């Protein structure tokens, strides 16, 4: 319990720090955020229109502490302010359109890569020098060493365009509306395959190697020898004794990957024109939509923290040693 409290305390402080930094950073940049928003948007606008924008956007000149307080109040209500690029839509409305897709793509790809990579890693280490071990990890590493952008572009070109096997853009077919129907769900799934596949392809090698290495060192542990000597089935020795322990160090990297799902799909989303937060982040930067940018950064930070908290809790379940 002590452990949980300590961790929770840590996450609370980290979250507060990132929330505060998120508030301060844009305000510490040269020029105040109001001017930045205006300057980027006004282009060759008539001065009277600029005045109208200042009026409409309600750009604040309040003291910093007052702004900070209303910022915190807003957060508590999940009110992240008004997007300047989609004015007067609330930032949350914009983020919502991408959140599901990013979580879906990033989550699915990360989990598949982790599970698959871990299984292959376990098996390669178990049959060290076997067919799987000599073929799969080097191949996965070879593919993983391709520049992602290049790989994704090649996949888009051949699979999507040349052979027309799978769609290579959007999260679902144009003209469809989200509904709990087979047509919509199958469309979402087919649109997910290519982007998720490319992510899995490039990240698989890392997971395999990570798991294989810890598995190899775990296999030389006495408790694995004892399990074998006890006459347990190969399966049980491999999974319950060796893999179960070898998994622990890899959980941390898995947590980090899950945490970075929100920001990690930037290039994927861009190449596959997938409507996620990564694309929104790029756009918010190029349009200097500070409220949107800030919110996305905050989401990323919080999701990294949340994923790590999740891993900590998972550790608590998986590793009895941390419970005391």
């Amino acid at each position, binding site marked *: 319990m002590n452990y949980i409290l300590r961790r929770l305390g840590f996450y609370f402080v980290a979250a507060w720090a990132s929330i505060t930094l998120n508030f301060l950073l844009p305000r510490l940049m040269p020029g105040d955020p109001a001017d930045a928003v205006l300057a980027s948007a006004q282009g060759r606008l008539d001065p009277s229109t600029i005045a109208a924008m200042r009026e409409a956007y309600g750009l604040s000149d309040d003291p910093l502490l007052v702004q900070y307080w209303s910022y915190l109040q807003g957060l508590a209500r999940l009110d992240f302010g008004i997007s300047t690029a989609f004015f007067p839509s609330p930032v949350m409305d914009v983020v919502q359109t991408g959140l599901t897709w990013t979580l879906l793509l990033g989550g699915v790809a990360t989990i598949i890569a982790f599970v698959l990579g871990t299984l292959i890693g376990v098996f390669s280490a178990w049959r060290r020098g076997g067919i799987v071990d000599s073929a799969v990890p080097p191949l996965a590493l070879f593919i993983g060493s391709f520049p992602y952008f290049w790989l994704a572009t090649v996949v888009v070109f051949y699979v999507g365009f040349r052979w027309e096997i799978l769609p290579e853009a959007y999260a679902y077919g144009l003209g469809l509306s989200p509904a709990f129907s087979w047509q919509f769900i199958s469309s979402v799934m087919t649109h997910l395959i290519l982007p998720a596949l490319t992510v899995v392809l490039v990240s698989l090698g890392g997971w395999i190697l990570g798991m294989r290495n810890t598995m190899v060192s775990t296999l030389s542990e*006495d*408790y694995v*020898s*004892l399990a*074998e000597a*006890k*006459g347990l089935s190969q399966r049980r020795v491999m999974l*319950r004794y060796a893999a179960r*322990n070898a998994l622990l160090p890899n959980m941390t990297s898995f947590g980090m990957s899950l945490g970075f799902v929100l920001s990690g799909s930037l290039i994927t989303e861009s190449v596959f024109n997938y409507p996620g937060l990564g694309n929104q982040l790029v756009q918010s930067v190029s349009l200097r939509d500070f409220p949107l940018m800030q919110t996305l950064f905050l989401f990323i930070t919080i999701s990294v923290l949340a994923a790590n908290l999740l891993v900590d809790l998972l550790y608590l379940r998986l*590793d009895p040693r941390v419970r005391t």
Partner: protein
Amino acid sequence: MSTTPVKDATLTPNGKPLLSVRDLRVQYMTARAPVRAVDGVSFDIAPGEVLGLAGESGSGKSTVAQALLRILNPPAVIAGGTIDFQGRDILAMSDRELEQFRWQDLSMVFQSAMNALNPVMTVEDQIIDTILSHRAMNETRARKRARELFEIVGIDPSRLHSYPHELSGGMRQRAVIAIALALQPPMMIMDEPTTALDVVVQKEIMQQIEDLKNEMGFSILFITHDLSLLVEVSDRIAIMYAGQIVELAPARELYERPLHPYTQGLLNSFPALTGPKERVTGIPGSPPDMAAPPSGCRFHPRCSKVRGFHARLVPPLTEVEPGHFVACHLYTSPDGPPDGGPG
């Protein structure tokens, strides 16, 4: 380099052996050259007998233990020999037969109890999975059996639900013994079962092992570098040096009349548990590099009684007195090389 074959009967004190090891060879397949960690080891264990196996670290004694259960980790492989257990050849067993054989017939108390238990499972689970994988028993009965075992080895059964890290070193070692007893095998390997423990706990556990053995009558292959300990628990003792058995004799005989200079050195390096205090003398030099062991008698570079031909000729393990085997030129060819060559 090979050991002269020894007649089966001579290695067994009496009757039919439980376990019979002949010319066992284990190699580590390294990039340089195969390292012969165990090089032609032969011995028998009779039912109910305690055979002590002693030697410096790296002499290959733990490797022998692992080979008996076929749990050697890569890159170690069994390169030759036979291991016969009650008429079955362990080295010829299929995976399935091996799973059956393990623990049912031969269990093992591991060297370091600290690492021998799976840190993420309760000790109870580690006992019952052993039982359940061999016995057609439901889980409730297996749990009951686990309680009995804990009582047998002297741990409060309430500690069954503990994880290994929650137990003291002594308790862990007892738990490991409980696991080894789970299926009541006819034979057990004990690989340095008390090394990591303090002297008081060590004594308690040794006493426990004695009692259990007397009660259940299993054979033990007792491995340790502590020769004085062996003398007390063993019926016979085998001394290993550089992957080979250099002397094999009844415990008391070996203690009182060690023949091999290495055995003599070993005995001198330990204070006797009982009797008058003597000056402890070690063996000069260090154990050989097993990738390139010395020629002839492997002990010759460290031997105070070395003669020229010892570096050329391998001394065979020979019965010099009834039941007392030694591999040393001093006893087999005291007058020079058997072929009459220059000494």
